[in-house]
């Protein structure tokens, strides 16, 4: 399947038809729900507390529903009006904004306890308008995101990287903007189940301890490790 981000800009690609398909396809919704749950788990929020969360590229609110189930209050941003229309019709709990995250976020400093983003980040790596510079947009996005997270908060991005250099660019942009953290690759040995989660930390948590990268799922004992290293090593395996 061709990568959707190569076909059209997100606000065009996710038109009414595509948005409706996306939301009614049980396979897609199940995968989205599963990835959302994993992303929330990686946020490592305090047990039983209602958090104020940001859903970046919330679409029709599939990931938001998972946040609702966990009792969180959320704000969702998306660039596709058709996706947001569906979210409005579904009467999702979160507050919705039509926004291009590559333009930066306007929330007040320290507003959110965490952020999740499901299948979005790869879209930011494209230049869809003549005025778009992906590198500048990534940086603007990460800088403003860092600001609106409270100290010690995490941002977890599930995404579909196109290649290694794209991962490197995204990570470099995030680190330059003050984030620490790295990549968690779940089920690295399975082509179909493999999932990439970029886990970013906005500063240290309240206890002052350095945050450790969560462990990936589906890794064999003694396997490459839990951070970016795991991915780097897998590159050395010759391609078939």
């Amino acid at each position, binding site marked *: 399947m061709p990568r959707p981000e190569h076909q059209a800009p997100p606000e065009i690609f996710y038109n009414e038809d595509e948005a409706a398909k996306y939301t009614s396809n049980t396979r897609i919704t199940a995968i989205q729900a599963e990835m959302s749950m994993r992303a929330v788990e990686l946020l490592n929020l305090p047990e039983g507390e209602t958090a104020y969360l940001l859903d970046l590229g919330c679409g029709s609110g599939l990931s938001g529903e998972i946040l609702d189930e966990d009792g969180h209050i959320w704000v969702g941003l998306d660039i596709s009006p058709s996706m947001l229309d569906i979210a409005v019709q579904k009467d999702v709990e979160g507050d919705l904004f039509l926004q291009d995250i590559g333009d930066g976020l*306007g*929330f*007040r400093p320290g507003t959110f306890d965490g952020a999740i983003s499901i299948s979005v980040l790869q879209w930011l790596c494209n230049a869809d308008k003549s005025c778009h510079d992906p590198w500048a947009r990534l940086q603007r996005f990460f800088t403003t995101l860092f600001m609106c997270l409270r100290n010690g908060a995490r941002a977890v991005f599930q995404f579909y990287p196109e290649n290694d250099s794209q991962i490197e660019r995204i990570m470099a942009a995030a680190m330059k903007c003050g984030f620490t953290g790295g990549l968690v690759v779940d089920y690295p040995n399975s082509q179909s189940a493999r999932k990439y989660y970029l886990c970013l930390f906005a500063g240290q948590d309240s206890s002052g301890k350095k945050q450790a990268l969560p462990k990936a799922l589906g890794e064999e004992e003694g396997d490459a490790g839990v951070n970016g290293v795991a991915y780097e090593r897998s590159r050395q395996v010759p391609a078939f």
Partner: protein
Amino acid sequence: MLQCHAKGCDDPAKNFPLEISDFTKEEIEAEKNKDFLVRMLPKLEWNALYTTAVKLGITGLPETLPSDAETNDEFLSALHTVLLEVHIKEGKMTCNGCNHVYPIKDGVPNMLLAEHEI
């Protein structure tokens, strides 16, 4: 909680709060959660919230943040209404710094910027 994010509009005295006008609002009942409200308190810029609430015709909030805010149930209940129950259906938000108007349609603010504002 929201300020203008247009590039170059970074005068902190002007880019927040956005001024809401020509609005219709609705109240949707939401579950009360005292702990959440208490954790929100330090994040709020009280003056901005108060003046915005008054513009929206909500009168329940005191002009200054009470010193017993964390335990004052009457106050927390009013705050709950403002933060979680009042929704702007239609309207516009205007930045006092760069005069950008962010329209709100169907409860969703349009935060897209023009090319020269990025």
